[in-house]
């Protein structure tokens, strides 16, 4: 069934077919409903948006910027992390700054090189680790630290329904239920406001395909560009499996995430508490005496001295 007499551009799992303007309207109201349903944004906020330059984070920024224009008490800042991945991040950051310039959004870029003395490419020459492990640790570390320095009240990320669905299943398959207790449309531990800036996921109920269509229709989709560091094979397998199921059974991803949301309060109750330490070296939150970022920085320092690694 078509929404109107304009040419349809997207078909919903229900079979309804939407034209460009009705799809954009549907998508944006879905995001606003998600924000309301999970109480992601208050009346007055100094919001950060973690911007990678990819379609997900640009779509979030585009929509939150609209929200901010309608509600001047909601301020928007974009934060980008430049890990230092040649041929990849430089390209996506270009798209990010272009968008922020055009929309007069303040963009703060923090790089591994400046903050830690080494780019990710350089770190990977020194340490034999999975790229995504240290990349993720340092990115989360910087995002949290810089969000506090910028006095952000919340940090929005571009995580979509597919990302969440993959994480839920991966945790099940690894028997890592406690990790699932931390998945949610809004993460962060509210009792520790001074340590953590709360993360929110406004695209929580949007599929990756919907986000891509929205980005395409609104000029936010850039040329396809993939990180040269091998993506996690496990996640890729789960993603492919889910997409096969989704194709045979439209709506599977929604069902998985919706049933997860029903169990989430029980999971949160079961795993609540847990002591958070303050890193002895940098005062950021830590699971042990020293935070993961400081542990890896020390390892980098030692191997660098040990092997006198040339950084060319």
């Amino acid at each position, binding site marked *: 069934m078509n929404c109107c007499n304009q040419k349809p551009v997207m*078909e919903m799992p229900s079979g309804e077919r939407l034209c460009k303007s009705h799809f954009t309207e549907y998508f944006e109201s879905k995001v606003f409903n998600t924000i309301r349903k999970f109480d992601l944004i208050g009346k007055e906020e100094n919001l950060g948006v973690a911007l990678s330059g990819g*379609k997900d984070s640009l779509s979030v920024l585009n929509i939150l910027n609209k929200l901010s224009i309608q509600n001047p008490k909601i301020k928007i800042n974009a934060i980008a992390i430049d890990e230092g991945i040649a041929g990849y991040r430089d390209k996506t950051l270009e798209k990010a700054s272009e968008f922020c310039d055009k929309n007069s959004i303040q963009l703060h870029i923090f790089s591994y090189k400046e903050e830690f003395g080494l780019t990710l490419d350089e770190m990977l020459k020194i340490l034999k680790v999975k790229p995504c492990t240290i990349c993720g640790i340092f990115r989360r570390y910087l995002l949290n630290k810089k969000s506090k320095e910028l006095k952000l009240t919340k940090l929005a990320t571009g995580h979509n329904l597919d990302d969440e669905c993959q994480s839920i299943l991966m945790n099940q398959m690894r028997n890592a239920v406690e990790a699932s207790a931390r998945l949610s449309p809004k993460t962060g531990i509210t009792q520790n406001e001074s340590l953590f800036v709360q993360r929110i996921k406004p695209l929580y109920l949007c599929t990756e395909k919907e986000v*891509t269509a929205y980005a395409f229709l609104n000029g936010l989709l850039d040329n*396809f560009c993939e990180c040269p560091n091998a993506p996690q094979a496990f996640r890729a397998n789960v993603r492919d499996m889910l*997409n096969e199921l989704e194709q045979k059974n439209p709506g599977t991803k929604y069902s998985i995430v919706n049933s997860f949301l029903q169990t989430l309060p029980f999971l949160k109750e079961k795993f609540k508490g847990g002591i958070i330490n303050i890193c002895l070296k940098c005062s950021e939150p830590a699971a042990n005496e020293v935070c993961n970022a400081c542990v890896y920085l020390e390892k980098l320092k030692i191997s660098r001295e040990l092997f006198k690694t040339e950084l060319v």
Partner: protein
Amino acid sequence: MNKIKVNIFVDRNNLNKTLELDKNSIVSDLLKSLNINPVTVIVSRSNELILEDEKLKNNDEIKILSVISGG
């Protein structure tokens, strides 16, 4: 003439080629012949999004864009 020619671009593998398809082929036939799951892509013709049951025409310029994030 029972065949049509379409020019396709698949962004994920940076693939450009011309395919010969049966006349009356639709987008999902094209995806099937390339072994691409429709859930993982959006498809455009001359920069307009088209749906899976859209009929393809001779000399169409088709882009198959991956919905998968790049990391």
